[in-house]
């Protein structure tokens, strides 16, 4: 649902960077400090949703909400400098302004995870949209059964959220596995592809909900591996990335078959998109 009347949804709100944390050589996490907001301001973002961040004079990009900063309504966004807009966003420093539209899109189905085991599979910067979900699960840990987090990356120096990973590993209520494509001998965790970890994970198919985010190929392989283990397709949620422009389902840039990823997604049940993601181009 758009955050307010659609004209309002198209108008960026002013915000400032409160903190900028460099995660890797090309990834930065921006903690935003929202300006005073009007009474009809949108609700705080839920894990899985995204905002349109506007780098003044450059343009807008859809960036998932990684968390909500403690004690504020300011969202946390992790940006990889890939194109002109994201390079400009990643270069922002504390105190610098930007525009924000949102939150938009569908959140992770955490309510449906209540009383169930949760399997989180994240690849690369795909951990960013899942970070808020993991934080929400940890805040109400008793509501969930076994929680397993599998994080994959290209190499150790490309993994984001080093502090979070350390905290999750230290949390005895979580099973955390980290795997990279290749590493030097100092790396003490696993090496291989992220889906190598799935056969090793304890999965009770009838009571597991899986949350997947990462490269689409990774999500397809992971979802197939879970299906092989009898996890139902409607218990697997994926977060898709497409070229969001308007973010309210009007412009069609993010259309995938019958779905507008900005409005119907980005989080979608696997059964809705499995066939679409196997097509070369739609």
């Amino acid at each position, binding site marked *: 649902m758009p955050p307010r009347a659609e004209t309002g949804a198209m108008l960026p709100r002013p915000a400032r960077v409160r903190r900028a944390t460099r995660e890797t050589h090309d990834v930065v996490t921006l903690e935003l400090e929202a300006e005073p907001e009007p009474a009809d301001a949108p609700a705080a973002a839920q894990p899985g949703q995204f905002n349109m961040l506007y780098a003044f004079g450059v343009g807008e990009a859809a960036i998932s909400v990684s968390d909500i900063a403690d004690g504020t309504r300011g969202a946390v966004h992790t940006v990889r400098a890939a194109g002109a807009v994201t390079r400009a966003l990643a270069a922002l420093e504390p105190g610098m302004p930007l525009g924000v539209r949102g939150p938009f899109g569908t959140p992770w189905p955490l309510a449906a995870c209540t009383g169930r085991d949760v399997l989180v599979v994240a690849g690369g910067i795909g951990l960013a949209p899942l970070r808020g979900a993991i934080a929400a699960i940890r805040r109400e840990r008793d509501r969930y059964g076994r929680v397993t987090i599998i994080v994959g*990356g290209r190499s150790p120096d490309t993994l984001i959220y080093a502090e979070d990973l350390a905290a999750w590993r230290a949390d005895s209520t979580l099973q955390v596995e980290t795997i990279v494509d*290749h590493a030097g*001998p100092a790396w*003490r965790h696993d090496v291989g*592809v992220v889906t190598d970890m799935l056969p090793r994970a304890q999965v009770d198919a009838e009571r597991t909900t899986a949350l997947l985010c990462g490269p689409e190929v990774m999500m397809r392989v992971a979802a197939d591996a879970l299906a092989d283990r009898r996890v139902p397709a409607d218990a697997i949620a994926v977060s898709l990335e497409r*070229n969001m422009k308007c973010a309210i389902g009007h412009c069609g840039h993010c259309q995938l078959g019958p779905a507008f990823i900005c409005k119907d997604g980005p989080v979608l049940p696997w059964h809705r998109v499995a066939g679409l993601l196997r097509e070369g181009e739609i």
Partner: protein
Amino acid sequence: MVAVKNLPALLAEHAFTQDLDADALAVLAGCAQNVRFRPDQSIFREGGRADWFYLLRRGTVALEMPIPGRGRTTIQTIRQGDILGVSWLFPPYRWNFDARAVTETGAIAFDAACLRGKCDADPALGYALMRRFAPYVSQRLQAARLQLADLYGDPNAAAG
């Protein structure tokens, strides 16, 4: 007192061999021995003769290769319940990577020539083993393809 399990009993517990019948396990045990590796101990080296095959019972092993400019690089880790070594199956029986114990590691080691001899003498046993190796090799091939695809590369480098 801690009971010491014999090799057929250990084989019956390992994912790779657990559904073989007792006779087959006894035959395999005739080629096997229990081994242990210390952390950082080399298990085999690239180019060496692939005279052994291992079922990991505990611990983690890194498959590595030296890459110019990057040093010794780990390309895969395997763990308890996995198998270590495929090169012993086919000529020229030569390891393609280094293997190093990352942690204290326990394994059942098979004399490769002995095991190949048993498979040749008993094709049903050989077939049963090959049916277990084939999915492993297929899975490794799929994983290698995914690594080659460099999934974490940025597909939208020119966008947003």
